[in-house]
């Protein structure tokens, strides 16, 4: 592991409530630049909720409320006067199920740039983003074809290209391969490995092998608590907490 890099996202004593029940309880975690961090844990442990706090997508969930702080480059994202639109432009997101817009491949990638008033050459941006998402060679001759004609794995890489096109600093991925077959999954995992050079990536996954393969650090959440956070190899080979060990050895979850 390279030495510690600058923190880019930090949560401090973060609580998230849906109505009266707390989905995330007192989570403090520091995510460093150009790292891949995996959130693992059984269903309902709060890992997706925690992820959605980082780009304020939880604002869109009726009844969701947070306490505590989420810092992005030292700035409290939930502070007064912070525009969630700006937050989401700088912190991109890829969802569990590929959700391309029912438009052409080109328009899917260009959408974020268009709405955010991109000043450069759209064609170049689309090509660059599709290359970064390792999709360019497969679609370069049919950029005007509808995105829904692509396979599931291609659609998900298109969604990654779309997220990269607004040049975010952090990329959040919410179980990005859970709807994909093993080969498409492998492609996305290779992609994550390459994207690490330029982005900080936070990935939620149900698949522990995936977490072990792609991430530098792993956070294990259980019932809203951050049980353990550390280097991935340490979490998987020598967990400090008993609950972590039970989970990764498959005794529950």
């Amino acid at each position, binding site marked *: 592991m390279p030495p510690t890099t600058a923190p880019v996202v930090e949560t401090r004593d973060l609580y998230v409530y849906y109505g009266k029940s707390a989905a995330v309880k007192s989570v403090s975690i520091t995510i460093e630049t150009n790292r891949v961090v995996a959130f693992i844990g059984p269903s309902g442990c709060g890992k997706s909720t925690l992820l959605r706090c980082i*780009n304020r*997508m939880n604002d*869109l969930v*009726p009844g969701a409320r947070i306490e505590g702080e989420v810092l992005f480059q030292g700035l409290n994202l939930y502070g007064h006067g912070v525009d969630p*639109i*700006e937050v*989401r*432009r700088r912190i*991109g*997101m890829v*969802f569990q*199920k590929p*959700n*391309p*817009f*029912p*438009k052409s491949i080109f328009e899917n990638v260009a*959408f*974020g740039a268009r*709405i*955010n008033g991109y000043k450069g050459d759209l064609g170049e941006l689309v090509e660059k983003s599709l290359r970064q998402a390792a999709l360019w060679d497969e679609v370069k001759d049919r950029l005007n074809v*509808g995105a829904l004609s692509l396979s599931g794995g291609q659609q998900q890489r298109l*969604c990654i290209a*779309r*997220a990269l096109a*607004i040049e975010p600093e952090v990329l959040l991925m919410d179980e990005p391969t859970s709807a994909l077959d093993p080969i498409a999954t492998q492609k996305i995992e290779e992609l994550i490995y390459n994207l690490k050079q330029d982005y900080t990536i936070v990935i939620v996954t149900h698949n522990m092998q995936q977490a072990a393969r792609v991430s530098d650090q792993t956070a294990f959440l259980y019932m809203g608590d951050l049980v353990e956070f550390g280097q991935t190899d340490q979490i998987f080979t020598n967990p400090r907490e008993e609950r972590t060990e039970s989970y990764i050895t498959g005794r529950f979850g």
Partner: protein
Amino acid sequence: MISPQQRRERFSPRQKQRGRAAMALQALFLAATLVGVVSLAVLFVDILITGVGHISWDFINSFPSRFAERAGIKSGLSGSLWLLGLTAAFSFPLGIATAIWLEEYAPRGWAMRTIQANIANLAAVPSIVYGILGLAVFVRWFNLGQSVLAGAMTLTLLILPVIIISSQEAIRSVPSSIRLASYALGATRWQTVSRQVLPMALPGIMTGTILALSRAIGETAPLIIVGALAYMPFTPSGPLDEFTALPIQIFNWVSRPQPEFHVLAAAGILVLMAVLMTFNLFAIMLRNRFSKRL
């Protein structure tokens, strides 16, 4: 361990009876469909035989007259086209804007549920009640007189609930994953609605609007209340002019004792249907162009 014999005895599939029941129901459904289709076809053919011989350019281009051979539908047709155009111009933007606000902007809660229930109830109010409302509000209070504008505004009120409800359903059917994808790219609510949700919902919105406008153009009762003329030897030249409409002209002819006028009514019905179908065809073509872009 249970034997295959025992396993079979646990079920009594009664395949024959189930097959018969399925056949009987299928026949019932077919019969139900035929009741509607056949009676409509008989009605249409009857009118076609009666009226088609009377359709000519003179019939379309003449004003009504007490002499059946000289009477035409010029004023009724032009009034109906005025009503159709104005009603579409009012109801389409108003209905969509309301649906967008209710689906995408309005806070959820009891107030919204009340408004929603009221809109649904308004869709079921008899059209004559809208006529009375139009008379009181547009004709008298707004002082628009017995004008084609007052008629169109009344028809707008009449069909707005239908347009709002069907537009809401179209907007609701856009998957939330599309909205989330748009928000996650830093889109504002309006960017999300205007560039993602509305284009996807538009075909559904247009279907609802077409149906609603088709209903408007066939309405008679509220127009009579608002004050459409029964005899009108000129065409409206502006929105504040007096008017009549095809259904009123048809009603007028049907209620006369002379059989020649009944022939005129049949011909008038055919023209009304032709207008409706042309309009529907146009709207469907427009809709298909929009849905192809997806």
